[in-house]
């Protein structure tokens, strides 16, 4: 029973983290390797606003999300737009940006383990006979809500449909008058906001440290690869797969294998089926 409950919690956390990355790649085929850095930046921004400047917690969260979104859009507008289309250059440029941000934060003084965010609600409750703390329950609820809102947004609203159009076929979208660069800008902005959202939801569970940025990037890549680069629902499903796989490994195999599971998942998926679970099957594009 605890495997079920905590499996769901772990999976939704992974899905939240990966959705930003999946969104950006799905729409504009930009691997945003600065994702982890934006996650950490959002955390520190919230901390600075909420703790240091003493602004209302909810307001600082929203401000941090907005600022991170703008930061992501700026990264696109001034950096990535110049290397658009060259996959490896995009990876290197965005990774270098992420590195600069993370190490810059460390240089600025954000070191040590005392940077934390307060959880939304204290206390715990019994769910199906398993004790769960309120904050984790909230994460699950909000996470599920985010997935739902994202689905509705991309299927009902005009901008969302435009984004989906871009993801399906860039040429056709261009012919219909959808501006590719502007859509990519929006995608980066939204992706960064999602990264910030997952940061403010998940960081209160522990503390904010710069190393977390690197871990988050690996997890996001793992989930997106397994789910198929470019498919949002694939990312969610893959999050559940990896999340449950990790929990089951901990319970039955031994906790020290959980990191290996995530990385092996990436390698095995890429060897067997590079487009992942739900990726668009472009056979010739992915393997010879």
């Amino acid at each position, binding site marked *: 029973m605890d495997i079920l409950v905590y499996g769901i919690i772990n999976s939704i956390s992974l899905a939240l983290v990966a959705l930003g990355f999946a969104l950006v790649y799905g729409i504009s085929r930009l691997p945003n390797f600065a994702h982890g850095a934006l996650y950490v930046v959002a955390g520190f921004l919230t901390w600075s606003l909420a703790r240091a400047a003493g602004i209302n917690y909810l307001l600082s969260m929203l401000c941090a999300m907005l600022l991170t979104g703008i930061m992501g859009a700026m990264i696109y507008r001034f950096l990535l737009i110049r290397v658009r289309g060259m996959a490896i250059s995009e990876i290197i440029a965005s990774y270098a940006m992420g590195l600069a941000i993370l190490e810059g934060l460390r240089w600025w003084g954000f070191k040590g*383990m005392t940077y*934390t965010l307060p*959880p939304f609600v204290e206390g715990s409750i019994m769910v199906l006979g398993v004790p769960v703390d309120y904050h984790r329950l909230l994460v699950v609820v909000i996470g599920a809500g985010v997935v739902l809102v994202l689905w509705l947004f991309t299927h009902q609203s005009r901008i969302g449909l435009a984004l989906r159009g871009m993801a399906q076929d860039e040429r056709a979208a261009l012919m219909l008058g959808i501006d590719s660069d502007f859509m990519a800008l929006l995608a980066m902005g939204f992706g960064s906001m999602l990264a910030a959202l997952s940061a403010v939801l998940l960081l209160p*569970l522990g*503390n904010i440290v710069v190393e977390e940025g690197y871990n988050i990037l690996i997890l996001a890549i793992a989930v997106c690869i397994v789910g198929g680069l470019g498919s949002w629902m694939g990312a969610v499903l893959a999050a559940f797969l990896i999340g449950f796989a*990790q929990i089951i490994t901990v319970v039955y195999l*031994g906790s020290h294998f959980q990191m290996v599971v995530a990385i092996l998942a990436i390698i095995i998926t890429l060897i067997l089926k590079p487009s992942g679970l739900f990726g668009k099957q472009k056979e010739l594009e992915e393997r010879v």
Partner: protein
Amino acid sequence: MKLAKLLTVAFLTAVALFAFCFPATAASGKPIVLGCPLSTAFLYGWDAERGIKLAVEEINAAGGVDVGGQKRPFKVEVMDTRDLEPGVPVSEALLVVEKLILEKNADFIMGGPVRSEAALAAMDLLSKYKKVSIVTTGVLTPKYHARVGKNYDKYKYCFRITGEAKWMVGGEIIPCLLGIGKKFNLNRLFIMIQDVAHARAGGKIIAKIMAKKGWNVLGQEIYPTGTSDFSMGLLKARRKKAQVILIWMDMPQTSILLKQWYDLKIPALPFGSIISAAEQPGFWKATEGKGEYCLANVVNAGNAPCEATPWTMKFYNAYTKRWGIEPEGYGTSSSYMAPYVLKAAIERAGSLDPEAVIKALEQTDMMGVYGRIRFDPKTHQVIPSLYPKKGAVGTIFQWQAGKRVVVFPKSIAMGEIKLPPWMMK
């Protein structure tokens, strides 16, 4: 334009750093260079940096070190090794040690490298360049002083003034656990450790010994560095009705573990053999008090307030005044002692010659911040004890009502261990 701005910032930073690096010299004479390879962006790096700098400032203000009649000041050269960062190879740390020795002409190496891997690898370098080194923080592995003992002639340059895992386990953790067991009638132990050599070895030994002493060891969970979810482990502990959870992790995710422990109200006492998140004074505020009742081991006394020796509180208050924060981490008091111990050894030897200083260090016998400081002549490890008058004393403290209260060893305890209220039912 952008490049010019970047260069200006860099230049100003360099100037600022230079200004900080200049110690206040009240003594004349060529300075004795102390090379400190430390991971300055991490707790176990800056705790050593601050301890060493404080001691050096005090020594220089009092006149410096008497080397065969001439008074010379200490000069601290700190260099960032980044060796506590996960993605950085240990060869970086070794390069820094070499830079300090070959370029900065360090006379002695002090402080690090901090990561056990790097420190072990650096031993060969130190023996090659014949530089005396005193490790003052990090490096918990017993392999360090075991290697010195096995090959004295090669590794005699390496000294360690901070505690290590073997004594911590046998001399402090086990007796403390037994004491808790007797006091509160507990005997069910659950172990959660990080997947690093010293934690794994320590956890295995603790499990074996506690089982022999009649305790029920309910399980051992090993977590790779970077794990951010401990739910299954905590639930297992709860299900098996564990009464004490032994934690041995130095990664920042320990705060996730403790927060969840508090929220789920697991009826077990979190006993930290090493639990880095809880060692900083800022821990209480950072977790809004959820870290209460957590025990942490800070390896050397003086890192939490107590009255081990007359020097302890003097150091504690001097540190707090100088850096604006109480000692944090477990390398502070030992890093503070190292320059003083070295000063005494140099004055005894009358010169900076490594062989002479080594012999003089082996004769060290002073009442320091955390007890009587003596090195084992064969392994160059500081001799530990439970009594400050006999040897170097460790410290286990518990967070109670926002304060770090030293609870073990009895000889320096400032308070009693308390159980969380939800356990008392």
